[in-house]
């Protein structure tokens, strides 16, 4: 019984994967993502290569001069992937929503949904199979992006990442898969919940716009230090200690600001990915358990979103009309 169930889910997953691979629009969006990612990493790597050469020249001169205490390199090759993660955050989410939209609209347009529902397949199996197939597509996409990014760092930046860095990178890309799978569920959920599939797509894109672009933007611009060019505290002649002291009077304000940011799923993905890829200097010296501790709130939020949306997807598939209604 369980093996039959597994067989049905895997069959649907294979169907989902093959259909997605044949979609022209997905190929176009994927091309935009890979080209933009490669472009961003190559650009950052080119600058990195020149800074690395400067450091190596300094290091060689210091060694030749008999200097015993040489400053460690301030460079972090993983941080070159910042642009790659930002593109996954923005374009990757659009791709995932499109994938979700196509899952539902494809069956409606082809009039195959009634046929599918006439077979001994439950809505839960349909949802699980579709999600599994979509995760397969997303993993392929993320692996392709990761390969392009890592090769760009090595070939253009002349600095290959080590095993420890590769482990952290895998974690960041693993969360990228969860992030995109969640947006896939959003796209499929809104499309399955609307009679006109394109309207569902528009609703999902509206939510994407708000969660990925607007909420982080609001949180960022409300930051007290971002109020004037060059920083408000610097303009007032205050250092870090003065800033911390003054911000103690803004506890409620900061709570509201961070809550706005916390409402954005994209911001949590960004925090986790940036912590794993050494984008923030303060995280570079931390061990993996310490890094997890630092971003624990983001991990919890990611898990909440990643659990809630597949449940909603299952619910919407169960209530989806088996006969196509209205315009698709």
């Amino acid at each position, binding site marked *: 019984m369980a093996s039959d169930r597994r067989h049905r889910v895997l069959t649907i997953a294979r169907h989902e994967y093959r259909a997605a691979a044949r979609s022209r629009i997905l190929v176009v969006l994927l091309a935009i993502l890979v080209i933009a990612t490669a472009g961003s990493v190559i650009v950052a790597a080119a600058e990195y290569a020149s800074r690395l050469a400067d450091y190596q020249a300094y290091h060689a001169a210091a060694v030749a001069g008999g200097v015993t205490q040489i400053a460690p390199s301030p460079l972090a090759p993983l941080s070159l992937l910042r642009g790659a993660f930002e593109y996954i955050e923005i374009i990757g989410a659009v791709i995932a929503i499109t994938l979700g939209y196509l899952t539902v609209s494809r069956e409606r347009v082809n009039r195959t949904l009634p046929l599918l529902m006439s077979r001994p397949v439950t809505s839960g199996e349909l949802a699980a199979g579709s999600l599994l197939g979509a995760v397969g597509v997303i993993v392929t996409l993320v692996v392709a992006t990761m390969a392009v990014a890592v090769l760009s760092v090595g070939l253009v930046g002349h600095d290959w990442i080590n095993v420890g860095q590769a482990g952290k990178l895998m974690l960041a890309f693993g969360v990228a898969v969860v992030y995109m799978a969640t947006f896939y569920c959003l796209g499929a959920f809104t499309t399955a919940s609307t009679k006109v599939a394109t309207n569902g797509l528009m609703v999902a894109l*509206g939510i994407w716009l708000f969660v990925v672009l607007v909420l982080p933007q609001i949180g960022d*611009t409300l930051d007290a230090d971002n109020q004037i060019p060059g920083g408000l505290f610097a*303009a007032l002649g*205050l250092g870090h200690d003065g800033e911390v002291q003054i911000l103690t009077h803004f506890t409620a304000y900061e709570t509201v600001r961070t809550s706005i940011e916390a409402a954005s799923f994209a911001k949590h993905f960004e925090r986790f990915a940036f912590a794993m890829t050494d984008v923030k200097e303060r995280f570079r010296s931390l061990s993996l358990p310490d890094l997890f501790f630092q971003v624990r709130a983001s991990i919890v939020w990611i898990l909440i979103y990643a659990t809630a949306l597949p449940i909603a997807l299952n619910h919407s598939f169960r209530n989806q009309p088996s006969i196509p209604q209205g315009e698709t």
Partner: protein
Amino acid sequence: MITTVTSQQLLSLRRQRVFLAALSMFVAMTAAAGVLGWSSHNTIVRVYDEAVKLLAADGQPTPPNPFLLKPELSLLSNMVVYVPLLGALLALLLGHLSLTDDESTGLGRLIFSRRVSRTGYAVGKIAAAAIALSVIVLVAMAVSVVSLMVVNQRIPPISVLGRLGLFYSMSWLYLMLFALVGMAAALLNRRRSLALLSAMGAWLVITFAIPQFTSALRPTSSLNPIADPVGSSQRFFQITALARPISIAEQYKAASGQILSTAAPEPGWQTALRVVPLMVFVGLLVAAVVILVRRHDFSRSGNGE
């Protein structure tokens, strides 16, 4: 003929729930830009007060008033971000709906079974988009004026209103570009979803990919009205910077910074030059939409997705 198509399209847009939802979102975000400006104003006042106390306790001189560093219209600096994000997507949707509705309902087939000029039809659709966007921009401007009055406790002077008018006129032109992209994508793709997503692909490239290529602006930098300065010491950027004048999103932001006085001043002719590529692209897209409508096969409308 043009008037009939225009008025029918405007009526149709008014009845579109998805369009009205997107419009409400844009107006709400315009109001939010005002609230954020007000919040920013209050934060600066409170931080300044606390800084004065802190520095006085340490026996240090009073710092300069930060409002001298913050121009009056910087209150609305978030609009420079919301127009290319929310406004452009709203405009894409408007352009998309203008043509796909006639396709999916079969209206296109019906219209062209009569003696109707295709050029007149295209011009009518473009005029409807232009009028709808004018209304949206006027509403946004009214909301901005109210925000300025509430925060500054006075009616904005004529010079400020003039700058605001100039900013929203340029924003209208920017939005027209995306409405035309939405129309062109709808005419080039048979399927509605493909049309919408390819128009969005164009938006992603214009808003995020090109600025990264020409100025090394990371995607999230595009979300902040105060952008990090970009170094041009690298040979790569010295070359790609040559394409910066045609990076529409960057030129729009730079010109907005000048009009709202939130950026370091530059000669007026330089700001005017920034708008030229935008005008050229809009002109080219108008011509493209007219040509595409003339060549489009409306006999299949009502059969597609």
